[in-house]
């Protein structure tokens, strides 16, 4: 595991459906993260195809927070049916943060809006479990386009100073992840890329969006698609886009 590895942590609750009752022998049913992991695998495959000694790759760690012993063995067994996961980490709720840091996790993905201190993003439910042939990563233009001068419109929307301060901090945290994604994206051409990046600005003006595009470019990431909604509802657009990863730090709740 080098500095370049894009270590992503996913909760076992998202990979497998742990709720429904299972007979002892059958593997666990697939969860939200399944489509994401498949898409990540195809990105890695393509990266390795380009260069065998590739170090810039995704690594997915499966995290189990407060899992029962029975569940742990079920998870181990089921994983081998479906996926190649790099690592399994089972820990208690208290040690969760530490586990993330010890494993150099660059992004923690969850279908819940968990409160963690490493960069975290929302793992999106795919409309159908059919695997897409592209890993789609969506960044919020409202966050990335955030500058000292542009906080007015967030205040107008009803966000207080503490929240705005948190958004600024989030913008700082996502940089490393965005830079790695940018580098990965550059390995592929404009068309036929297994990795697809999207910028979505929900409330900010077109100038906020332009700032976000320039910021990402400075970080080495040229997004494929860009949307500026100027306050239009984002659900219809997201339904068409179907991103796997949505990074907006809770701004668009």
């Amino acid at each position: 595991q080098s500095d370049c590895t894009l270590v992503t942590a996913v909760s076992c609750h998202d990979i497998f459906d742990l709720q429904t009752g299972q007979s002892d022998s059958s593997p666990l049913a697939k969860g939200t993260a399944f489509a994401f992991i498949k898409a990540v695998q195809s990105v890695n495959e393509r990266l390795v195809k380009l260069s065998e000694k590739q170090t810039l790759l995704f690594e997915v760690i499966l995290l189990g927070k407060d899992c029962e012993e029975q569940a742990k063995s079920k998870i181990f067994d089921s994983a081998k049916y479906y996926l190649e996961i790099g690592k399994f980490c089972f820990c208690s709720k208290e040690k969760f943060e530490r586990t993330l840091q010890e494993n150099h996790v660059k992004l923690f993905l969850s279908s819940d809006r968990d409160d963690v201190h490493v960069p975290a993003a929302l793992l999106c439910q795919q409309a159908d479990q059919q695997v897409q042939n592209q890993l789609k990563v969506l960044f919020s233009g409202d966050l990335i386009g955030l500058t000292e001068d542009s906080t007015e419109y967030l205040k107008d929307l009803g966000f207080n100073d503490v929240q705005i301060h948190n958004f600024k901090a989030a913008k700082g945290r996502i940089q490393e992840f965005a830079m790695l994604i940018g580098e990965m994206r550059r390995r592929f051409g404009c068309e036929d890329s297994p990795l697809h990046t999207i910028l979505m600005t929900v409330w900010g003006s077109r100038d906020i969006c332009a700032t976000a595009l320039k910021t990402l470019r400075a970080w080495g990431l040229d997004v494929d698609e860009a949307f500026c909604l100027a306050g239009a509802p984002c659900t219809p657009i997201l339904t068409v886009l179907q991103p796997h990863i949505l990074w907006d730090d809770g701004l668009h709740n």
Partner: protein
Amino acid sequence: MNKINHQQTANNVETQSVERMKAKDPPTPSKKPKSPKPQNAVTIAVSSRALFNMEFEQQIFEQKGMEEYLKYQLDHETEPFAPGPAFPFIKALESVNEQLRNLYPDSEELFDVVLMTNNHAHAGIRLINSINHHNLFVERFCMTGGNSPIGYLKAYHTNLYLSADSSKVREAIEEGIAAATMFSAEKVTQVSETQLRVAFDGDAVLFSDESERIYKTQGLEKFFEHEKTYENKPLDHGPLKGFLEALGKLQRKFYAKGHRIDCPIRTYLVTARSAASSGSRALKTLRAWGLETDEALFLAGAPKGPMLAKIKPHIFFDDQMFHIEGAAELGTVAAHVPYGIAQKMPPKKTKDI
């Protein structure tokens, strides 16, 4: 119309939502007005090549490919594009909006323009710079990086889609979205900056192509007979009926405030039907739909170019390239609606419907 109850909002101090914004005083002149909700507005989606002149860049794309094209866009990022064929139309929409806002400050029944482009976001900054340079009110855009715009058109409740790419326009029409293909023109007449003028062909644009089929397959005499027999039976609707309807709704808002004669929106029917015979069914159909155009011009087969040159519309919709070309020759911005029988049959040498 949404009336805002300031007293009520002031009591809901705890709510932390977008509603808070409405409680503030109306925006000061320097602040841009908020974009209307898509379902309330008349949404016009326009592609980058329809809005701007990107012919040179398009050539690079066609001859040298995507990478070269994007590199060129990047290198010329600070150079704004010149206006494209849809530009005057879009500018006129903004003028109508200003006048609507004066009369109805709280209403969201306005035009809303969305830039709907297939372009990669790499070209995004140049497009935003161009929008800023020309001071256009385009706040919403979708740069789909090569993906189909159809899903997004629907998400925005698009009332009209204008693009230079005929295959996308055809796709939109098949999905029930009013759409037309735009072409760059050599010569474009100066049009009004304060009154929006929209001209429509009748058959296969406002109406279905049912009568045009008869003309094309059975000839002019049969067509006249048929139209006379079914004079009182409304024609079926065509792809742009909904857009005329949307324009009519906005027109009535001006009428309600006493602006009938000088209404900032004016619509025209420009049809090859003849006033003496087949034209009657067209008018009766519009009436049956509760719609009207300000002027109806029955050319009885005469070329449309000269009449349009007199009207000076911002845009003219027709299903036949023959008419589009005739209009463009005399300086009218004409958009092609790729719908109906005319797309499958070559134009007749004699009078066309």
